């Protein structure tokens, strides 16, 4: 062993100093020759004879030197270095082709890297904490992962296996200080193209700041220290604790210009003075994807949002997600068992409460903690589909480069034949060529990483510019080692995919033919054109699959944008009104809201005004338990329904027809949560669900908070011992674009109860907005407002944004694929036709008609295209079946996507064949015959 190491060390040393070793050995050989010759002279030879004979006896000097070099140094490394040097020289010699190949591959690799980087930044991102793999999120098997504070505290105090359990609440936004500047209005082009618009804060409204609520031990459990100042103390999460907050460094830099005096200062949030005790480091977002402006204790955040909330003791409303740190050496399984035992005890102690797992329905499960939550099977499948789609783009790019290299290897055949003829082994040539292609792919990989990084940076900057500046999304898009490994893997795969075939063919030429410069005449033609046919067919089929998939996605996304929602959102703007809780009493706020609504309704630009607790297609979806047969609401069998608290004007304003019965009257509207004896309007689907085959009008039912409905602290829940159905409203899509709401109960409220104010403009929406803004600012009376136009209010909702993004993304993918494939088909088809120029010339000389020769060329070049299209149709049918759950309002064999994609490919293939064919048939026969 020791001897081996010594030998290796000696080899490395010799490898490092090749010149000195060569000189040494040359001197040795020289003295050897001299001594040998001297001996021979001593035996009677003339000096010349002796010298000659000595040389012969010693053998070929250069072979000997080569052998010596190999046995003293590292021959393999030497060979690889030689190959590299040679590869670089060859690539430089053919700079144009190298550039085209590198750019083609780089585009393919770049798209893949960009998608993978984004996937990596979202799905594979651990939370920002030391040893993130030991952090788990405690979720339930039914997918619900929210807990009430008392439940969290119970787990926290009684778990012995965890080294700590931390809680993170919801994100919030608060008004900060008294008055500030409205957010800047310049928005990026990308945001504009994607249709993002942002609410305009009405003048005089204070600036907004975002926050996230966390438990007192949050930073300690994560193992993270603030950059400046201190973290929360456990007792600062208490109901009576003095209000303290940490701010993020991002906020500190943006808003306070790194003012060191911020620490210990008081800031006013929703009218409450809060002391800043620390600053978290830049871009730190913990278990959340967004860097908040403020980190607040859970109980403080809930008090700021609604002073009446009693988060600490309210076991019936959920407030947080829970994360735990497993100590080293603890198995997640044993901690899971312990937590489920605790859950069972909680269930036993508080059987009637809504929160908490029911034994048979769900149990606690641990998932790796990630800011974006644990990706479910559907999300993973979607990500895989995108990765596969961009993988196809890379495949097409590889095919393009392969045909480029094939074309070039035809011109290099002579060089390779000579090397083979003077004794280079086929393996040696193969290695040499593959080294060359690997260098090519690695160059492309490096370029691809840069391309993807720049484009992602550009997108990130644009997205950041598009978001309101109190939302800092911390997407970590810099390529990390995983991304680099992925790119390296892609580059190597691309080397094999694009280079193996050309290298194999180039290294086995028909020696005599190649040396006689007959490589491209009829002898080898048949085999070569067969290979090209295959490549054209394969490229066409892969591209067709990609184009059809992209076409289906684009079309389904467009469908989503045009879908009939059941209400008319054009010309409807929304107004969110609030007021600092600490300075205005609820009664005052209610009165001011009523006045405001009245004043707005009297504006000539406004047709009607309404208020509702929930924004269609927005958040705030709440459910209540409904009993239609007099059973208890806490019965396991009760139904539940989504509800919306609306003013009587809601249906007219939103354009939702009442199909049967009547609308609410102003007298029927309620102010609080008690709806005993009130009328109700139900949607068609609700009527069918609750009273199938019966007349819903006049039916009585009870409702209220039930066992399975999430409630959020500080929020009331409507309840009634008996309400009566007075009307049936048309179904709308207010939860998801994919279908009408399965249930919807409308309950009558007065405008002062809160919620969003909806304004339908009479005529031009822009004028109406200006009038509303003017009216609000003229008499704002301590109110704060945010005004959203109809595009911002509705088409910015998640469903629309996802569809638009889907349409843009799939169009980009499809366009890239088409571009790549067209270039590739043009290249391969064009090459085949060009090679046949001579044959065409002969045909023309023998009297063939021009259109005849052209027809012949086109039929032959289109045959592989047709076969490729057929194969592509089969592939696309399979792929679109797999995608069918993502397509709505569209058959998985949508004819527009299928035929459109095929047509586009046909046209580009025809053009690719036609242009060179035309050139060939216009050539003078004599010129064509002289071609070689």
């Amino acid at each position: 062993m020791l001897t081996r190491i010594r030998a290796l060390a000696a080899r490395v040393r010799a490898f490092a100093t090749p010149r000195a070793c060569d000189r040494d050995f040359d001197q040795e050989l020289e003295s050897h020759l001299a001594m040998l010759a001297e001996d021979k002279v001593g035996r009677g030879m003339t000096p010349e004879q002796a010298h000659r004979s000595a040389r012969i006896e010693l053998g070929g000097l250069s072979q000997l030197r080569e052998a010596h070099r190999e046995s003293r140094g590292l021959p393999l490394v030497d060979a690889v270095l030689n190959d590299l040097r040679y590869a670089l020289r060859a690539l430089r010699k053919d700079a144009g082709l190298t550039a085209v190949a590198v750019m083609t591959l780089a585009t393919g690799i770049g798209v893949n890297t960009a998608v993978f980087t984004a996937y990596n930044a979202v799905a594979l991102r651990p939370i920002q904490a030391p040893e993130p793999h030991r952090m788990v999120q405690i979720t339930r098997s039914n997918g619900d992962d929210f807990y009430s504070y008392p439940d969290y505290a119970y787990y926290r105090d009684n778990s012995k296996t965890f080294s700590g359990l931390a809680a993170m609440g919801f994100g919030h936004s608060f008004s900060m200080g008294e008055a500030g500047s409205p957010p800047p209005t310049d928005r990026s082009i990308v945001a504009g193209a994607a249709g993002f618009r942002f609410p305009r804060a009405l003048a005089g409204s204070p600036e907004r700041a975002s926050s996230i609520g966390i438990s007192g031990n949050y930073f300690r459990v994560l193992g993270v220290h603030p950059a400046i100042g201190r973290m929360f103390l456990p007792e600062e999460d208490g109901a009576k604790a003095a209000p303290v907050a940490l701010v993020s460094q991002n906020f500190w830099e943006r808003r306070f210009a790194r003012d060191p005096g911020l620490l210990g200062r008081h800031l006013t949030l929703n009218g409450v003075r809060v002391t800043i005790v620390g600053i978290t480091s830049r871009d730190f977002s913990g278990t959340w994807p967004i860097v908040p402006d403020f980190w607040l204790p859970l109980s403080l955040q809930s008090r700021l949002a609604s002073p009446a909330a009693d988060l600490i003791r309210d076991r019936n409303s959920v407030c947080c997600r829970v994360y735990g740190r497993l100590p080293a050496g603890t198995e997640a399984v044993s901690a899971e068992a312990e937590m489920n035992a605790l859950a069972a005890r909680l269930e036993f102690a508080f059987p009637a409460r809504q929160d908490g797992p029911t034994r048979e329905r769900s149990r606690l499960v641990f998932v790796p903690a990630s800011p974006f939550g644990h990706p479910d099977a559907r999300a993973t499948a979607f990500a895989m589909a995108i990765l596969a789609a961009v993988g196809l783009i890379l495949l097409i790019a590889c095919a393009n480069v392969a045909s480029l290299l094939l074309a070039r290897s035809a011109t290099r055949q002579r060089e390779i034949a000579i090397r083979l003829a003077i004794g280079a082994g086929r393996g040696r040539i193969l290695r040499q060529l593959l080294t060359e292609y690997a260098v090519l792919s690695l160059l492309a990989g490096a370029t691809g990483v840069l391309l993807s990084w720049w484009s992602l940076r550009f997108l990130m900057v644009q997205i950041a510019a598009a978001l309101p500046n109190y939302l800092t999304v911390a997407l970590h898009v810099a390529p990390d080692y995983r991304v680099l490994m992925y790119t390296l893997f892609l580059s190597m795969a691309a080397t094999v995919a694009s280079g193996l075939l050309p290298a194999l063919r180039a290294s086995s030429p028909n020696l005599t033919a190649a040396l006689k410069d007959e490589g491209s005449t009829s002898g080898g033609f048949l085999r070569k054109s067969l290979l090209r046919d295959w490549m054209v067919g394969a490229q066409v089929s892969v591209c067709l699959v990609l184009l059809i998939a992209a076409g289906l996605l684009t079309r389904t996304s467009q469908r989503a944008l045009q879908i009939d929602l059941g209400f008319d959102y054009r010309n409807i703007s929304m107004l969110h009104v609030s007021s600092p809780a600490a300075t205005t009493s609820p009664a005052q706020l209610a009165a001011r809201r009523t006045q405001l609504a009245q004043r707005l309704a009297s504006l000539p630009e406004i047709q009607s005004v309404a208020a509702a607790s929930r924004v269609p297609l927005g958040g705030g979806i709440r459910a209540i338990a409904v009993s239609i047969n007099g059973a208890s609401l806490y019965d396991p069998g009760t139904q539940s329904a989504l509800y919306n608290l609306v003013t009587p004007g809601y249906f007219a304003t939103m354009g939702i027809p009442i199909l049967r019965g009547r609308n609410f009257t102003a007298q029927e509207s309620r102010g609080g949560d008690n709806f005993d004896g009130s009328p109700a309007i139900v949607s068609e689907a609700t009527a069918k669900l609750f009273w199938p085959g019966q007349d819903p009008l006049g039916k009585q039912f009870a409702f209220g908070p039930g066992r399975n409905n999430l409630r959020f602290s500080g929020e009331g829940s409507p309840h009634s011992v008996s309400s009566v159905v007075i009307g049936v409203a048309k179904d709308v899509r207010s939860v998801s674009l994919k279908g009408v709401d399965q249930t919807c109960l409308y309950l009558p409220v007065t405008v002062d109860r809160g919620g969003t104010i909806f304004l339908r403009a009479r005529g031009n929406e822009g004028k109406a907005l200006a009038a509303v803004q003017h009216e609000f600012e003229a008499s704002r009376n301590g109110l704060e407002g945010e005004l959203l136009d109809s595009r911002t209010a509705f088409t910015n909702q998640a469903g629309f944004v996802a569809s638009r993004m889907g349409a843009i993304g799939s169009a980009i993918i499809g366009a890239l694929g088409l571009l790549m494939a067209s270039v590739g088909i043009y290249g391969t088809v064009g090459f085949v036709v060009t090679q046949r120029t001579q044959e065409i010339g002969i045909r023309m000389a023998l009297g063939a008609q021009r259109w005849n020769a052209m027809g012949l060329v086109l039929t032959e070049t289109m045959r592989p295209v047709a076969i490729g299209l057929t194969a592509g149709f089969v592939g696309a049918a399979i792929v679109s079946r797999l995608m069918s759950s993502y397509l709505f309002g569209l058959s998985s064999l949508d004819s527009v996507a299928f035929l459109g994609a095929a047509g586009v490919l046909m046209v580009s293939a025809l053009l690719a064949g036609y242009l060179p064919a035309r050139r060939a048939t216009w050539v003078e026969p004599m010129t064509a015959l002289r071609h070689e």
Partner: protein
Amino acid sequence: MPEIKSGILQGTLDLMVLKTLDAMGPLHGYGIARRIEQLSEEALQVNQGTIYLCLVRLLQKRWISAVWGASENNRKAKFYSITKAGRKQLSAEAENWKRVSGVIGRMLQLATRS
């Protein structure tokens, strides 16, 4: 005897070089080649170049060492000498060789069945 000339085993040459250096003291490459030819009574003709490849191998394993010096005719030459590790290797190899050649010898003495 052309078969033997070409069929000389690598390990055998190593052994011969080591033994030569052990017996003769420091020698240059040409001297080693001459000495092996003389000792084998010209029956074993070594390709003189391969001696140098063998010397490189032995140097890498540190069984021999080399210094530049002056030859008998005052010519600059590289002198090789056996090291302590080389001697140990030599005795082990020699032992092995004796055993193998003994076995071969006995095998060849087996009466051929007729």
